[in-house]
């Protein structure tokens, strides 16, 4: 190979390979630490919740009111089922606010007819500037239901409107098509009852594809046979059971999923609500709440609770999945850029010194480093500079250790919640975990790189998310 700046190109490739190898070792070492941390946290959590009397909360006058904020855009085919499931959640002081974000279909009409809605006026304080509200409805049949019809402004804007109308001390932000398990809120509220410094809690998101759903409830959990969905099941388990749970113990949670999160309403309002001009509005809000707690004082703890579960449908097409991952990575880049002042800043303690460097150097840059590693490995093999033994070592370090960690995550799930019961599901889950590194992971590297590139070019669009609909609801829905 040619000389470059006086260094032999071959040498450069080999050195590059070693740098990438060390990077993977460090990253996987950190993951190992997270896994141990999540094991300890899970054990403690299971001991605390075993046979607890959550039903007492249902009859307590002290239970704080929770307002569920469910933004909906063109959800006419699924909104009734989703809303009935929400109204049936087992929590005593519940308010459900559906915000139709300028739906162009019959979403609002469906709601008016099926839930006996009547137009009302109400007095609310608009502490956050939002798109205009067209109408407000209350249900004559369900006193806890409020429907807001507003001009289209995106999910963040819809959530901000919901925040203004909410009466609860706590607000639960979710997607209209997320299925929350019946006792999910009883479980999710625990950190707020147990500590005064908690500002937000998040629950586990699981993949519904392949499972049986009836009346808005998952009645039989199955691992999907579709490879793309199956590998996402593995990814979600890894992200929630080992990633977030592990960070919980280390005090470094900064992500609450936009599909299911519980927030202290006053804290969110004081922070200015959700930002409109970012695609990572959920992570941005959590990081802002955390940042403000350091700067102004006040509650700032973010808690992840593993047992409340919300089910979501994941994409089964490469095109849609690619768009989603690209958007997630743009969101991450955007949030880290907005809050770059916190990075390595001792004022923000563990968040500034550990969590943000992790997200910047591991989560954000990983696809770039992985791509460099893979390309240089291929070049090295082509030019005969790298031998096959080194290539095997590289692959096993980069992916083998990751696969072992994933397998331990599956064990963690099996030892704790054990949602996938049959041998068929177990084998399928393991198969997807093994196959994940043979193509799927490399594709996610490409999508994330694409997201990074788009971020650098200033793109902020969401892209369409196509859904098949839960079984037995077959009608497709779309959201923008």
């Amino acid at each position, binding site marked *: 190979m040619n000389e470059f700046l006086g260094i032999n190109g071959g040498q450069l490739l080999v050195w590059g390979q070693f740098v990438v190898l060390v990077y993977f070792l460090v990253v996987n070492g950190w993951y190992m630490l997270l896994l141990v941390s999540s094991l300890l946290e899970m054990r403690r959590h299971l*001991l*605390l919740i*075993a*046979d*607890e*009397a959550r*039903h*007492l909360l249902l009859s*307590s*006058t*002290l239970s704080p009111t929770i307002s569920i904020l469910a933004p909906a855009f063109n959800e006419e085919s699924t909104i009734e089922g989703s809303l009935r499931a929400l109204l049936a959640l087992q929590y005593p002081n519940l308010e459900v606010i559906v915000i139709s974000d300028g739906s162009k279909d019959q979403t609002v009409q469906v709601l008016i007819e099926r839930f006996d809605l009547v137009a*009302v*006026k*109400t*007095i609310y*304080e608009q502490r956050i500037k939002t798109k205009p509200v067209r109408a407000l409805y*209350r249900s004559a049949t369900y*006193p806890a239901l409020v429907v807001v019809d507003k001009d289209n402004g995106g999910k963040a804007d819809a959530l901000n409107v919901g925040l203004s109308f909410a009466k609860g001390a706590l607000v639960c932000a979710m997607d209209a098509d997320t299925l929350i398990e019946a006792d999910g809120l009883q479980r999710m509220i625990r950190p707020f*009852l*147990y*500590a*005064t410094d908690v500002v937000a809690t998040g629950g586990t998101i699981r993949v519904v594809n392949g499972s049986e759903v009836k009346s808005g409830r998952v009645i039989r959990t199955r691992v999907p046979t579709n490879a793309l969905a199956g590998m996402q099941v593995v990814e979600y388990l890894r992200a929630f059971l080992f990633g977030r749970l592990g960070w919980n113990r280390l005090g470094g949670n900064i992500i609450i999923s936009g599909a299911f999160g519980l927030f202290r309403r006053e804290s969110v309002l004081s922070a200015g609500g959700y930002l409109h001009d970012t695609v990572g509005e959920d992570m941005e809000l959590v990081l802002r709440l955390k940042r403000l707690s350091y700067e102004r004082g006040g509650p700032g703890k973010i808690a992840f609770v593993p047992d409340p579960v919300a089910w979501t449908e994941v994409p089964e097409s490469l095109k849609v999945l690619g768009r989603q991952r690209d958007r997630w990575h743009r969101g991450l880049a955007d949030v880290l850029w907005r809050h770059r002042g916190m990075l390595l800043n001792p004022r923000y303690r563990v968040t500034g010194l550990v969590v943000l460097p992790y997200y910047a150097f591991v989560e954000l840059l990983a696809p770039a480093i992985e791509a460099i590693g893979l390309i240089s490995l291929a070049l090295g093999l082509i030019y005969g500079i790298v031998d096959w033994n080194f290539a*095997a*070592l590289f692959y*096993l*370090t980069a992916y*083998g*250790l990751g*696969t*072992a960690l994933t*397998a*331990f995550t*599956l*064990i963690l799930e*099996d*030892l704790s919640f*054990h949602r996938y019961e049959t*041998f068929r599901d*177990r084998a399928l889950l*393991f198969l997807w975990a093994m196959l994940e590194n043979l193509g799927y992971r490399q594709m996610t590297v490409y999508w994330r790189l694409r997201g990074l590139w788009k971020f650098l070019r200033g793109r902020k669009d969401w892209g369409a998310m196509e859904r098949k609909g839960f079984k037995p609801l077959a009608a497709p829905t779309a959201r923008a």
Partner: protein
Amino acid sequence: MTVEIALLVVAVIIYFSHGLWLFINHRRIQRSTEAARESLARLVTRGTINVEDVALLRELRHDVQESMFLEMSRNLTGAGKERLRFVAREVSLLDRARQLCASRRWTRRLRGARVLARMDVADPLVEILLADPHPAVRAQAAEWAAVQPSVPIITTMLTMLADPATQARFAVQDALLRMGGIVAEPLAAFLETHSGLPAESGLRVAESLASTGFRPAALRHSGSEDAGVRIAATKLLGAIGDAPSAERLTELLKDPDSRVRAAAAQGLGRIQHWQAASQLAEGLRDSAWHVRREAGLALRSIGAPGALFLRRALKGDDAFAADMAQLVLDLPAAAAAG
């Protein structure tokens, strides 16, 4: 390379062996569990003790037996619960729970307290756990105390209103509320002598009980320097709603803290104290939005005198007061009630 392969192999072995173990174990205990569940149901419903049924329950694995009893305890009260307790005693579940309560590990003490609480066993061991070093155990003991409302327990529970752990404090407040009217007198006496956080926690409980016996304490705490205590006291006055309370609520409309002013307006609206209409109308000019809102809603709920002030505010020189008055007057009846 060897490390990675070894880790992967270990993970595979653990994962599938655990699955196999679960499968075998499930099949092994399924039959005996079903039979034991039927035995327990028979013992509890019939009221006669069948030695074979008890023996079957005794043979169960301890954790399975414990879960079975706790599951059933949730749906039983009175004589049924008494019979369940008797059977639990016969199969040594309660003895084991007592031993757990004395353990050095908090997780075991928690389990022990949980069993005794759910079985409503009046055991002094759990009372001792009200002072446990771990908040989860204290909270569990407080849950137990809810169905043991004796004077010494209520006294201990009241002192626990100052518990630094939110979890324990919440459990104590909830337990006191579940005890019902019996705590009113000791709580009133407690509120007379305490201030700060314990007072604030106690006032919240008192608000739900809303007895006039709390009036002296509420009046005293409404002048507290701590805003949190004043808010709780104001809400309690609103819940009591008699003439002296209404008078004090009217004074509290001028409190320096906007949350107290809002709570006072809300309380006056709730008791429809028309005599405070002019002071509430002043509230429409308040600098805090939520005070203006509560004042407006209170005026509306008062009826004709309140509506008069609202209409007058429409023509007044204060644009904020006029806006709020307009919003309130535009409300449909149902929304105003809500």
